[in-house]
């Protein structure tokens, strides 16, 4: 991607415009930070259970809080895409040599940058609450990268396709709760051993979010577990490949 590629130009456009919509920045991070503090306080006693991997519950919770920022947060890209449809600007972009792929990717990358920074805010709060990151600054960056990429290939692609299909921001917003479901059906709040329901354990094992979360948690609590990190990237890549046909299928619906 060079400095003149449509994807890069459209990424820059979105980045320049973020500060002009302070509502997106202002209201997307505080709820996650509040949930982080509230759940961290409510479930703090879990850390006393036998076999719990850390004495600081915020350390355990922080990777899930990063995902809570990046996964639902990426849907703002799709809302922006649908809004561009509604105000006609997307069709103006399509009169240029830029492809719909560049238009989608440009927006997703810009939101990825935003979420990377917002996820960083979550980790800073965790540090302020006494948590430590076992892998240090580099591990924190890797954790944020995994969280952001996972948000893009899962919820980002899904909601962008809903935007392509419906061209309606409200339809995109209606899918938001699904993002929380993806994260809640993991070991976000307690270890798998502590989950009593067999059905829930099966769901957790089938949920791709779990494998990404485990890699991030290892970075937070233990160190570089390359097997877990590799598996997380395989999951991300696999979901990205799965999302591609969906996008291609909806691609032509852009044209009237």
């Amino acid at each position, binding site marked *: 991607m060079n400095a003149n590629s449509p994807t890069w130009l459209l990424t820059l456009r979105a980045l320049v415009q973020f500060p002009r919509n302070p509502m997106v920045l202002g209201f997307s991070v505080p709820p996650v930070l509040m949930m982080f503090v509230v759940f961290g306080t409510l479930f703090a006693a879990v850390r006393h259970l036998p076999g719990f991997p850390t004495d600081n519950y915020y350390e355990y919770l922080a990777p899930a809080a990063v995902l809570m920022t990046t996964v639902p947060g990426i849907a703002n890209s799709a809302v922006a895409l649908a809004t561009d449809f509604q105000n006609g600007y997307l*069709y103006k972009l399509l009169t*240029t*040599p830029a*492809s719909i792929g560049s238009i989608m990717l440009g927006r997703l990358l810009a939101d990825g940058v935003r979420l990377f920074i917002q996820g960083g805010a979550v980790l800073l709060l965790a540090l302020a609450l006494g948590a430590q990151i076992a892998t240090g600054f580099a591990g924190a960056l890797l954790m944020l990268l995994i969280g952001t990429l996972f948000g893009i290939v899962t919820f980002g692609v899904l909601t962008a396709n809903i935007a392509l299909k419906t061209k309606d921001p409200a339809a995109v917003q209606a899918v938001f709760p699904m993002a929380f479901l993806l994260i809640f059906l993991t070991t976000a709040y307690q270890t798998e051993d502590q989950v009593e329901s067999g059905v829930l354990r099966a769901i957790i094992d089938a949920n791709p979010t779990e494998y990404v979360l485990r890699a991030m948690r290892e970075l937070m609590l233990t160190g570089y577990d390359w097997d877990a990190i590799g598996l997380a990237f395989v999951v991300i890549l696999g979901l990205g490949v799965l999302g591609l046909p969906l996008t291609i299928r909806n691609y032509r619906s852009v*044209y009237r």
Partner: protein
Amino acid sequence: MTATLLEHRRKTPDQSPLDELLSAAPATAGGPDAIVVDGLAKRYPDGTEAVRGISFSVGTGEVYGILGPNGAGKSTTIGILGTLVLATAGRATVAGFDVATGARDVRRHVGFAMQEIGIDGVATGIEFLVLQGRLHGLSRRDATRRAHLLLGLVDLEDAANQRTGEYSGGMKRRIDLASALIHLPPILFLDEPTEGLDPRARAAIWETLERLNAELRMTIVLSTHYMEEADRLCGRIGIIDRGLIVAEGSPAELKASIGGQTLSLHYAPDSPAELLSRVRAALLARDDVLAVVATDGHLSVEVDDAAGVAPELLRVLQHEWAAPEALSIKQPTLEDVYLRSTGRGFGEEEELAA
């Protein structure tokens, strides 16, 4: 097919933004046909047949008008040529590239100002134009320079740093047009380009389009339902009705095709339809009457020599049928051509479309 020649003209201190823009613009040269349309059709998923097999061609450097009421198929036709609408049958080439298989190449050669204005409301005017220019491959420097010239051209210099979302409807229309010109394309598509503009802004845009066409040989295809606009700007016009081109030619040819002049007979609005129908039949039976079209208490009577026929016609109507409340003689207009070609008035058709 379309090649470009760079022309460099000396800038003088009193140059207008348009002069300066043109001074560094590529002048278009190329083959005879910029656009070839063959049997083009579009059926929307809901079954609406917006375009039903139309064919026409537009020569390089020509201004071609697609004239018709709302709902006639103008926007669909121009949308297909601009690669935003997928045709369901037929073929079209723009700048030598097939609109279906070479869409990206087509877009490199065209500018498109759509009927539904498409602007980025969060961007400022200058940012919006620079991005459009860069997406068309201009360097930042060239895009910025041209953007400033175009803002001057469409009288928006003072609003350059204002967000376009805060612009009035007319300002949005003007910056949208400017964005279609940022890369000075050899072919320009304009869908109702002066819709919603005041007469002064409309005249300014007409003048700009005339100069772009005259000095750059820019091929312009515009759809409009304004007769005056089509008459003034277009070298040739295709009149479109319910998805079909029903008449084509230069404005003068089209007007000449319907014969001499038109006598307009105005009856009271509450006149019985039966009376008008009988008068129409009686007029059609006369040798000196070429055609009669009835619309809303009004009969348009085409004759070779209106001034010569009018007294005799009035006398007959007064004695045998009913004299009109008013009578006027007018030269043929494009609306008369539409009336003759379709049997309906523009207004009627637009009401149907609505």
